[in-house]
């Protein structure tokens, strides 16, 4: 099976000295980026959710209106809006952009940020609430009408008159659940099309996803990529990424991690004790750039090899990001994707 490639939509900027605020859309840059992703053959763009960002559903609406093929993988959390209204909003969006949406359901990563939103639940309870949230939302998509009486949500005859609209015939968005905890796996097993895992070595990923894959759920990998013509150039680019940005930001990930109750964050911290987890999986930037900075670093061929190794371990979808954010998508799309597909065809 051919792997599906997704890319993370840049929200701030990454030119030195220009740490752009990501709290509002920058359509003048984001629309060309989306069109590039479309042209390069990416499946969808991940639109993050977070307290410092523009709202991911509203931003996807604006970007969807300006594009025609690319999908939007919209990150959202439970506990923010009623599931009925969530379905209504997504169905409305589906009708506007021909169903080019999928969902990345996450549980949130720091209690501080959750409380700023008015969410006081602990980590495991947030996954329990997410389970109920998705039970209702998927019920509306599947059956049209839902009655539900749970610990977190109660609805009677929940229904939405705005149908989910997609010319490919799908009646609901694909659901990706992201997380490394037991809670995430439980929710993914019940509700998701794809479980998203944080970067780790293929040998550790394989046993982790086996039970999920056995239940027919796909496994996706969330990882950074830094691919260059030669290994040496890639490592140089990786080092530049590690050292990028003001020194005061560097090291702040440690304090973020200590406040986080996400297992994904904790395991990224543990992994970053070793700089190279494989000849191509590099954690050197985690300390300065955060938990999503674990990267596949290498020549075009080396990165393609890494992708194939993950595929052999059971990964079928890749949610990628890179650095510099815009250029790296071009490099991956024009140099690496073709090599992966070619070598797959040969194998």
């Amino acid at each position, binding site marked *: 099976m051919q792997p599906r490639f997704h890319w993370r939509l840049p929200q701030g900027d990454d030119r030195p000295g220009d740490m752009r605020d990501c709290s509002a*859309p920058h359509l003048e840059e984001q629309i060309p980026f989306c069109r590039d992703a479309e042209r390069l053959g990416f499946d969808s763009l991940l639109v993050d959710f977070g307290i410092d960002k523009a709202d991911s559903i509203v931003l996807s609406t604006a970007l969807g209106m300006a594009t025609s093929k690319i999908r939007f993988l919209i990150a959202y959390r439970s506990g*923010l809006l009623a599931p*009925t209204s969530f379905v*209504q909003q997504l169905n*409305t969006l589906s009708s*506007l952009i021909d169903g080019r949406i999928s969902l990345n359901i996450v549980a949130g990563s720091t209690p501080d940020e959750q409380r*700023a939103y008015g969410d006081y639940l602990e980590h495991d309870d947030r996954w329990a609430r997410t389970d109920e949230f998705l039970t209702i939302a998927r019920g509306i998509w599947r059956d049209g009408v839902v009655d539900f009486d749970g610990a977190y*949500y109660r609805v009677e005859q929940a*229904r939405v008159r705005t149908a989910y609209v997609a010319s490919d015939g799908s009646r609901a968005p694909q659901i990706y659940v992201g997380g490394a905890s037991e809670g995430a796996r439980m929710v993914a097993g019940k509700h998701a099309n794809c479980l998203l895992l944080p970067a780790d070595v293929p040998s550790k990923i394989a046993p982790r996803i086996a039970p999920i894959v056995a239940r027919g759920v796909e496994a996706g990998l969330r990882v950074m990529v830094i691919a260059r013509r030669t290994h040496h150039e890639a490592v140089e680019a990786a080092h530049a990424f590690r050292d990028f940005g003001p020194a005061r930001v560097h090291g702040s990930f440690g304090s973020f991690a200590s406040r986080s109750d996400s297992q994904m964050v904790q395991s990224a911290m543990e992994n970053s004790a070793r700089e190279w987890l494989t000849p191509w999986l590099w954690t050197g930037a985690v300390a300065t750039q955060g938990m999503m900075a674990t990267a596949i670093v290498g020549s075009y061929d080396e990165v393609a090899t890494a992708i194939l190794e993950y595929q052999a371990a059971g990964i079928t979808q890749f949610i990628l990001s890179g650095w510099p954010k815009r250029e790296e998508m071009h490099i991956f799309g024009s140099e690496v994707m073709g090599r992966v597909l070619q070598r797959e065809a040969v194998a």
Partner: protein
Amino acid sequence: MNDAPLRFHWSMSSAADPKRRTQARAAMSAVPDFKVLLNFCLMAEECGIDSLLTAYGSYRPDPIAMAASLGVMTSKIKFMIAIRSGVNVPAQFVQQINTVSALTNGRVCLNIVNGHTPEELASFGDFLDHEGRYGRTDEFLAVCNAFWHRGENTVNFEGQHFRVANGRLGSRYIAPDGRVAPEIFVGGNSRTAEETVIRHADCLWRFPDVLSVVGGTASRLAAAGKETGLIASVIARATREEAIAEAEALTASFDDSARKVHEQALARTDSVASRNVYGLARQAEWLTPTLWTGAVPFMGPASVAFVGSYDEIADSFLDYKAAGVSQFLLLGWPDIEEMQIFAREVAPRVRDREASAAAMTVKAS
């Protein structure tokens, strides 16, 4: 009289579907026809309409997604996004509205509604009664406003329905005029709705009534520095006879099924505003020489209509302005045509009268 010109808004709910309100709600489709709605928005821009109401409910497309999508394709028209408390947590709602404001350069305002039918509310997981919902709305708006007006502070709130600790958002409300929060309207005819406006909002939307009743509402709100607006339909024609003939043709076009739809709606609602209007309609078909309730049994509370010649309607609007009304949210049947008639014939007459009233004021002083 308030010197500011009357502001006119229009409802997008029935755009290109003139008989929508006569249908059982279950028969309505809520899949938006984007081209029709965009055309309606562009027409409203041409007509000088201030904002378009995008309604909320299980029979509607989502108003925030509609405002965002229509907003990026238009340049002048504002979107009045309807919302109930109890659907979103305040911070997430503020984040969505802020993002819409950034996309539209501040062309967004809010219409806070209370919901009207318990069974429809239950489908959203809302099981509170009428007063309970207003209690929650009070907290909801308190927290939303705290986010919008927080400056560099964080938001802390401990209520019955909402809690926030060290709340902050990266996004801000963006508008060219420097507003830090959207203009907030609250819909309702109850005293509780008035109190909500006084505590948290800018303007009340109420259904029309005779001048003395509306004037009472307006003076209570004006005392607190708040505005009063009327939600009404309009049938304006060159002569009074033509307008009445149009109104009569409208009611004649309905059959008993439309009446049954609204009898059932009335039986299920806990909205004070809806009950008021159905009550008024039973008392009299004409509340004033221009205010007609004849369509209410078939089309519901928002069909209380100003019916008359262009001059009569302009005069009537000025009478309500004198009583303290500063804004109108209008509907028409058919929608686009009535909006065009309004813009071409009624609005200029209103502006003429406002100008001569201002001139008289200058003379007198």
